[in-house]
C-alpha cells in the first residue's frame, strides 16, 4: 500500500518506526484542515501558519506516546485548539483594531470560487462575495472566547464537554458562551447584510433575521 493510501493508524505506526514520509503524508492530509481551525481562532494567516507548524512539530515529538485511543485527527485537533487558546491568552491584540490585509485578499480568492459556481449570475456573485466578507469580518469582531467556541462547534462539531476541557471552564460556561457567540454573530451579520435582496439563495435574509424572543 502506498503511503498516500494508508489510513491514519498505519501512518502513525510508520511514523513511530521513524518513517518521515509517512509523517509528511499525515501533514499533507491535514494541514489545510488544521489551518482552518487555527485561522478561525486567530483570524490571522501568519499566526495560523505558525500554529500549524508548531502543532505538527509537537505531534511528531509526542507520537511515541500516542496510544490511539482517539483518532489521530481528534488528537491533533486538541493540540491545535490548545495552541490557539494559549496564543489568544498571550495575545494583546485588541478586537476590531487589526485587520489582516492578507486575509482580505484570501477572502477575495475564496469569493472567486463562489463566483465560479454562480453560473455567471452577477447579482448572485456579488451577494456571495458580500456574504463571505461579512462572515469573515464578523468572526474577526467577535471576542476571542466567543469565536473559539463558535469555531470549535461549527467547524469541528465538538461537544460541550470537550470544549469545556479545551477551554478549562465548566460546561455551563461553554453553553452560555456559545449562545452569546451565536447571538452576536447574527447581529453582526444582520448589520452587514441587511441591505441585500432576499431572493438570492434564500439564505441571507433568513439567516440574519433576529430570532423571536
Amino acid at each position, binding site marked *: 500500500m502506498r503511503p498516500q493510501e494508508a489510513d491514519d493508524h498505519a501512518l502513525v505506526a510508520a511514523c513511530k518506526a521513524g518513517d*518521515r514520509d509517512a509523517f*509528511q503524508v499525515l*501533514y499533507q492530509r491535514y*494541514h*489545510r*484542515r488544521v*489551518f*482552518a*481551525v487555527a*485561522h*478561525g481562532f486567530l483570524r490571522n*494567516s501568519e499566526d495560523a*501558519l505558525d500554529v*500549524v*507548524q508548531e502543532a*505538527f*512539530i509537537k505531534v*511528531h*515529538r509526542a507520537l511515541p506516546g500516542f496510544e490511539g485511543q482517539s483518532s489521530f485527527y481528534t488528537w491533533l485537533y486538541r493540540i491545535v485548539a490548545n495552541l490557539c487558546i494559549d496564543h489568544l491568552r498571550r495575545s494583546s491584540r485588541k478586537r476590531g483594531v487589526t485587520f489582516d490585509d492578507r*486575509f482580505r*485578499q*484570501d*477572502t477575495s*480568492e*475564496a*469569493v472567486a*470560487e*463562489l463566483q465560479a459556481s454562480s453560473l455567471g449570475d452577477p447579482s448572485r456573485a456579488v451577494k456571495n462575495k458580500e*456574504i*463571505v466578507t461579512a*462572515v*469573515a469580518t464578523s*468572526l474577526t469582531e467577535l471576542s476571542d472566547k466567543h469565536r473559539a467556541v*463558535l*469555531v470549535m*462547534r*461549527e*467547524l469541528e462539531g465538538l*461537544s*460541550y464537554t470537550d470544549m469545556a476541557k479545551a477551554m478549562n471552564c465548566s460546561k455551563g460556561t461553554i*453553553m452560555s458562551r*456559545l*449562545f452569546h457567540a*451565536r447571538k452576536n*454573530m*447574527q447581529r453582526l*451579520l444582520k448589520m452587514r447584510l441587511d441591505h441585500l435582496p432576499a431572493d438570492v439563495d434564500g*439564505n441571507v435574509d*433568513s*439567516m440574519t*433575521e433576529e*430570532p*423571536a*424572543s
Partner: protein
Amino acid sequence: MTHSIGQTGVSAEDLQRYFDGELTGAQAQELASLVDASPELSAEIRQLQRMGSLVRDTLRHEAQSIPSARFEQVWDEIEHAIDIRADEREPQPSLWARLWESLRPARIPLIATLGAAALALILVRSGSEDPEPVASVEPPVPNPVAVPESPRAPVLPPTTAEPAVGAEIHDLQFGGKTGRIARTGTVTVLYVEEDLEPKQSERSL
C-alpha cells in the same frame, strides 16, 4: 437568563442544546416534537444550521486560498525542527574525539613528524651524555670473612684488602697486631679494643 422563543415556551438555550445534540433521549424527543409542530422553532433551527454552514464554508474557503507553496515552506520548517531535535538526541562526541576527527586529514603526517622528532631527541640526548658504565654481573660471592659490625669494632685501615673467593687469609693487620684465620669451618674473630683494659670476646658465625 432564559430567552424564550415566541409563544412556544421553549427557551433559546434549550433549543440550542437540542440543536447541538446535548439533550438526553427523552428531552431530545420532546423538543423534536415541539420543533416539528412549531414553524417558529423550525425557523430558529434553520437559522442555526445556516449560520453554522456559513461559518464552516468561510473558514474552509480561507484555508483553500492559501497557496500550496506556503504550506510547503511550513513543512520545510517542520522537517528542519525535527532534524535539529534528532541531532540533539544523538550523544555528542567529546572534545578530544572532535579534535581527533578534525585532524583526520593530517593524522598520518602528524604522527610521522612526532615520531621522527621523538627519535631525533633520543639520539641527541644519548650522544651528549657519558656512556653509563656497563654493570657487570658477578656471581654472589660468599664472604668467607664476615666481620660483624660492632660499635666497639675498630675501623679497619684502608689497606685491608677484600679476600678473594676461597682465599685463605693468613695475615691481617689489626692495629699493628697480626692474626690468622683458619678455614676449618669455624671462623674465629678477634676483636681488639683499645681500652685500657682490653678484653676479648668470641663469637661463632
